[in-house]
């Protein structure tokens, strides 16, 4: 978990020019860090490459838009990292 978070936080810091110290596991990527959808594509690209996965951004967006999930479930960084770990585990299984 900590390794995943460190990697994700560094990606966000580099991609969006956000001071690394401002990025915590409790940060909401959109509400706290001000990351928009276009910047998140760059982040998703870097995460996909770093972990060898494919973040299901489309299904997450659809779930949020349909009220089946909250943005916190996917875009608070500790939750995002948990999803990434699940995708990594699924890939290895």
């Amino acid at each position: 978990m900590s390794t995943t978070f460190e990697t994700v936080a560094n990606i966000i810091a580099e991609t969006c020019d956000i001071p690394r110290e401002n990025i915590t596991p409790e940060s909401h990527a959109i509400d706290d860090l001000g990351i928009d959808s276009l910047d998140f594509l760059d982040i998703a690209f870097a995460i996909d490459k770093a972990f060898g996965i494919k973040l299901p951004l489309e299904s997450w967006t659809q779930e949020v838009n349909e009220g089946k999930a909250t943005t916190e479930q996917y875009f608070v960084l500790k939750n995002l990292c948990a999803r990434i770990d699940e995708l990594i585990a699924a890939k290895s299984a």
Partner: protein
Amino acid sequence: MRLEYFQMIDKVTELDLEARTLRTANTVPCESPIFEGHFPGHPLLPGVLLFEIMAQSCGMLLLRLHNYDRMAFLASVDKGKLRTFVVPGQVIDVFARLEHDGSGYARLKAEGRVEGKLVCNADVTLKTMPFPAPELRGYLLSTAERIGMPMGDAVIDTVERAGNLTHV
């Protein structure tokens, strides 16, 4: 190349589905109203159109890889470089390669060459989504046919080609 209609691709010269690459040949027209302003006495293909040629080549590759079931829209251009002037009559050879096919987006690399010399290159991000209008899909299928895109075993619903635009 019909600049006024944003028809930037003339011909597909190579498609490699396994390597996820596409090569296109695109001749800059000798005459166009664009050259009256860009620039008087020194006609140049505008740099933004070089990015458009690369973006369209990337888009046509991605659409072919997705069997024309989704549309691709330009989202960003990174590391874009315009290395030298491109003038009327020159043929731009564009090479596009899919680097990563993500969820709802794709990242590609593209470069353009004239007589073997690199004139432009960029990293292109395309956002993908279901076609917002059936006539758009029909237009792109017609475009694919016009530029000689190898369709191979692509499964295409030809009925939707009724969405052709008259100037294609």
